[in-house]
């Protein structure tokens, strides 16, 4: 995160764009109903805080069309919406309509969620006023209070906790509800940093293992080519990757379609026949969850034994391939080839061996290994679901190593695998709103926040604490902004609920959201936040993309809603930090600041905010005609452009990992390790089914749950194979109880052959809705998930669980 630019002051307002409030706009609508340009014709309606400023032509029916970014939740895409605004209300939503739609700069077409946003925007359940808890924590009883009371309440609690415990007892938890700069947790983080800091965290719920593990092989996370390069590929493995549903950057699925049109063969390895498997792949290969590294190892076995590996590339660019390539002093340790051929453990990783683990026929394994080994160039793209699992580091390392030994690194159409941030600058920034430095140096792995509530003072390096040897506090105050992590999205919901309902543990909880979420129900103070159409904002791409998307304010916040920025500013005032916090800027000024920030970094040619808004295209893009390819320089001359690894090369064997001396859970070469809840373990006697909770089309995690058009299109269901359903007497549409030691869910079933036998799927993100017996009636998979974390990355392993299903 680059630092703030305090010296920058915004230019005077452009007289061509005139602000107007809603009343004013309606008046104009009536006056100029003949289809005049709304723009520039309403001097006199200028609103000093330049709030609603709609560019575009006033249509006959009084609508103005404004192009704006789809609210920047953590959805996997970033798209342009075309909003039809009439009398302050959004009456229709379409999407990007820029001419051309060329592959170098394709339209950013919205998905089903963006298109149905009106149903969220105007949902009757949206929060209206600040609320104070009246019942017990978590009971969901509240009463309305004023903003003054709300600000007093949270600021006095912040001061008290700081006084009694110190800043490290404060947590602004993980929250991905908004990345539009002036809404979202970053606004709170900035204030806390000015206030003396709060407990830091690192990592994400998304890709803890993949972001942590990739650099052990490559020394960087920037291992991906720009996506336009995908059309150069001839063979693409979508490994646990479902871009049709989770997008992974708007248009990823479209680029794959284009690649296929140009002749690429695409296969999909996933326990579910995902939407991507159906629409993008030539072949679906179902795999038993959690066994990917076994398949990868067997593929390596075939590739190496049949001499399909790229020996020259391995010689020049890799280390640790075999005993001739081991780091100094470790010549006798198990190299990658040693593991594959079983020289040490006596277990050659043959396709037959892998068949027993993965459930994939050995002949299929051999075939795809040959394909991947011989069709050039080839991509092995890893999804993030399989690393949100026990030992989720291993398939990440395994994928990287496969890409390396086949020589697919640093070439057009190839793919180094791993987290694959976009070459060559790492891609979009997501957040540039300056949060500043956190004076509290201690950081925990993001997933371990409940641990830090229960036993923070006992946590040290062994629990992944960095920046300090030990924590000096348990978490005592949570200020939760744009997040449903407290209850819904964290593992083991019943446990989280137990912890949070104890007022002796966390003494004060504030939640800022648009809805009364399961997390908000556990708050002492709930503050209502406007939607991202009701304030100025700006976003860039999700992981990939070369654009900046504008999010002008198009409507007033209803009732007493405020932006996260306004709320933080209000609290800052009580803390005596208003000037430092706002630097005299409102949201619009910050967005102006942000545009300038992009000009100084990724996009030197980006026009200023006034101009961008006036253009009303919604987005500034930089077309990609010659896609960048990661590791090009390194591949050309590895000695001159060494990697940021200890050896400067691609490390198939990592000495750093070796030195951790935990070979069973953190081996120095990627290995298949049986998961802690596995169909091969004794736990499967009671709970024989593996349960996934994939990222579902109608939601962004828990955001959008309960929106009628989305629920109609994709209802919350348990997906179960006919064999498993029949043996339990379950028919399509029946309601079933899904349970394990941690909790119970009652949910209707969808019987479908599109999921592997032995595996069920409850799409993650449904709002926890326990009945009086504690049975969740909506289907939140986190009722069943475990809070055990992965060994190296301290990552969430929420996809690794075993359950039983019975008909109700």
């Amino acid at each position, binding site marked *: 995160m680059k630092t703030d630019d305090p010296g920058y002051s915004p230019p005077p307002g452009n007289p061509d764009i005139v602000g107007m409030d809603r009343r004013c706009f309606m008046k104009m609508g009536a006056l100029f109903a003949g289809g005049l340009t709304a723009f520039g014709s309403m001097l006199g309606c200028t609103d000093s805080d330049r709030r609603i400023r709609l560019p575009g032509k006033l249509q006959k029916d009084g609508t103005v069309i404004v192009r704006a970014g789809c609210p920047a939740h953590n959805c996997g895409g970033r798209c342009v919406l075309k909003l039809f605004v009439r009398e302050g209300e959004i009456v229709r939503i379409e999407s990007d309509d820029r001419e051309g739609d060329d592959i170098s700069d394709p339209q950013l077409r919205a998905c089903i969620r963006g298109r149905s946003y009106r149903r969220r925007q105007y949902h009757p359940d949206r929060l209206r006023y600040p609320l104070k808890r009246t019942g017990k924590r978590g009971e969901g009883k509240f009463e309305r209070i004023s903003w003054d009371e709300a600000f007093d309440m949270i600021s006095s609690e912040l001061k008290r906790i700081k006084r009694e415990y110190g800043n490290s007892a404060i947590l602004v938890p993980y929250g991905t509800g908004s990345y539009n700069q002036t809404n979202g947790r970053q606004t709170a983080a900035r204030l806390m940093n000015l206030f003396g800091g709060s407990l830091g965290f690192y990592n994400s719920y998304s890709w803890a293992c993949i972001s942590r593990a990739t650099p052990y092989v490559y020394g960087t996370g920037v291992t991906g080519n720009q996506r336009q390069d995908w059309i150069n590929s001839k063979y693409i493995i979508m490994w646990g990757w479902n871009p049709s549903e989770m997008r992974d950057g708007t248009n990823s699925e479209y680029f794959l379609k284009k690649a296929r049109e140009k002749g690429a063969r695409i296969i999909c390895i996933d326990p579910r026949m995902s939407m991507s498997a159906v629409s993008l792949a030539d072949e679906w290969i179902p795999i038993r969850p959690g066994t990917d590294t076994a398949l990868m190892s067997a593929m390596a076995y075939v590739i190496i034994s049949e001499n399909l590996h790229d020996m020259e590339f391995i010689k020049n660019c890799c280390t640790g391939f075999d005993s001739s390539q081991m780091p100094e002093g470790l010549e006798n340790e198990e190299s990658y080839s040693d593991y594959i051929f079983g020289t040490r453990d006596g277990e050659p990783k043959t396709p037959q061996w892998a068949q027993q683990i993965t459930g994939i026929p050995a002949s299929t394994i051999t075939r795809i290994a040959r394909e991947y080994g011989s069709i050039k160039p080839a991509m092995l793209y890893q999804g993030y679901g399989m690393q949100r699992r026990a030992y989720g580091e291993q398939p990440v390392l395994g994928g990287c190593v496969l890409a390396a030994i086949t020589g697919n690194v640093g070439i057009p159409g190839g793919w180094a695998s791993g987290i694959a941030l976009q070459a060559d600058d790492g891609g979009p920034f997501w957040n540039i709103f300056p949060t500043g430095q956190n004076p509290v140096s201690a950081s925990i792995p993001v997933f371990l926040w409940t641990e830090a509530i229960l036993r923070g003072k006992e946590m040290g390096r062994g629990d992944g604490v960095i920046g300090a040897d030990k924590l000096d506090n348990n978490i005592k105050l949570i200020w939760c902004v744009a997040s449903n992590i407290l209850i819904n999205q964290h593992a083991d919901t019943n446990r989280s609920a137990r912890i949070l309902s104890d007022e002796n543990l966390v003494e004060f909880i504030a939640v800022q959201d648009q809805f009364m979420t399961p997390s908000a129900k556990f708050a002492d103070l709930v503050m209502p936040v406007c939607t991202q159409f009701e304030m100025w904002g700006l976003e860039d791409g999700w992981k990939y993309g070369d654009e900046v998307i504008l999010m002008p304010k198009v409507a007033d916040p209803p009732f007493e809603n405020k932006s996260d920025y306004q709320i933080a500013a209000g609290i800052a005032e009580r803390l005596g930090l208003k000037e430092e916090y706002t630097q005299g800027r409102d949201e619009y000024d910050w967005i102006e600041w942000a545009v300038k920030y992009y000009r100084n970094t990724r996009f030197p040619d980006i026009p200023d905010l006034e101009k961008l808004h006036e253009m009303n295209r919604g987005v500034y893009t930089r077309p990609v005609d010659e896609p960048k390819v990661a590791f090009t320089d390194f591949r050309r001359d590895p000695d001159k452009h060494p990697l940021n690894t200890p050896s400067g090369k691609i490390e198939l064997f990592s000495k750093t990992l070796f030195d951790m001396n935990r070979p069973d859970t953190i081996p120095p070469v990627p290995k298949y390790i049986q998961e802690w809840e596995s169909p091969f373990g004794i736990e499967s006697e009671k709970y024989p089914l593996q349960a996934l909770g994939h990222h579902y089309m109608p939601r962004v995690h828990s955001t959008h749950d309960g929106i009628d058009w989305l629920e*109609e299109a994709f*209802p919350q269901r348990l997906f179960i194979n006919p064999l498993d359903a029949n043996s339990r007497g379950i028919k*399509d*549409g029946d309601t079933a109880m899904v349970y394990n030691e941690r909790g119970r869910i009652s949910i209707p079933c969808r019987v479908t*052959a599109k999921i592997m036998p032995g595996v069920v799927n409850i799409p993650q993100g449904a709002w926890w809705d326990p009945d009086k017996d504690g049975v969740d009636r909506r289907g939140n998979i986190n009722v069943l998930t475990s809070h055990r974390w992965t060994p190296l990355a301290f990552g969430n392993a929420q996809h690794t669980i075993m359950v039983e299903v019975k008909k109700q």
Partner: protein
Amino acid sequence: MKQIAFYFDSSACSGCKTCQVACKDKHDLPRGILWRRVYEVCGGDWIKRGSAWLQNVVSYHMSMACNHCEEAICIETCPNAAIVKDQKGIVLVDPDRCMGCRYCEWTCPYGALQFDSNSRVMTKCTFCADYLEEGKDPVCVTACPMRAMEFGDLDELRNRYGKNSDIFPLPDAGYTKPAIVITPHRDSGKAGSRNLHIINREEVKPKI
């Protein structure tokens, strides 16, 4: 007479239903009315051989609205002559003539006709006739993130994409001569052998 038509590429459709919701938003359709809806077709079986799972599962999607048929059975059956074909070939329900007898709903083999209990008349895809009038494209077509849909003159679309208009689960084109051209998914030919069926019935809400 020219006949306007849809083109649908089933091989590229992901079943994301953006088209479905785009249509709902444009026409303000309540829950339960789906002028465009997406059928999820699936078939095939699993067997275990040793430690390996063998399967021949197939699946694909069909996004479907009204096909503005050349021999529209709905037009023939409506007693009120409330369903008409306009100059472009668009089949439209005239809400001022419809008496809500729901007879046409029984007959259309594409489930296109859907009764709106609020307005108390039959409704269906209008091909976004108002947009066409303004020179704009139908919203479902421009909504598709996979660019799996097009529209245009039926003959031209046939020239470009062939004549297919009745892959499973659609009825034989002979019944109504639908104005649609389809690029089939590779799995669509496997109806008989794999017990193909619609697996998302509750989502497409057929009125039976």
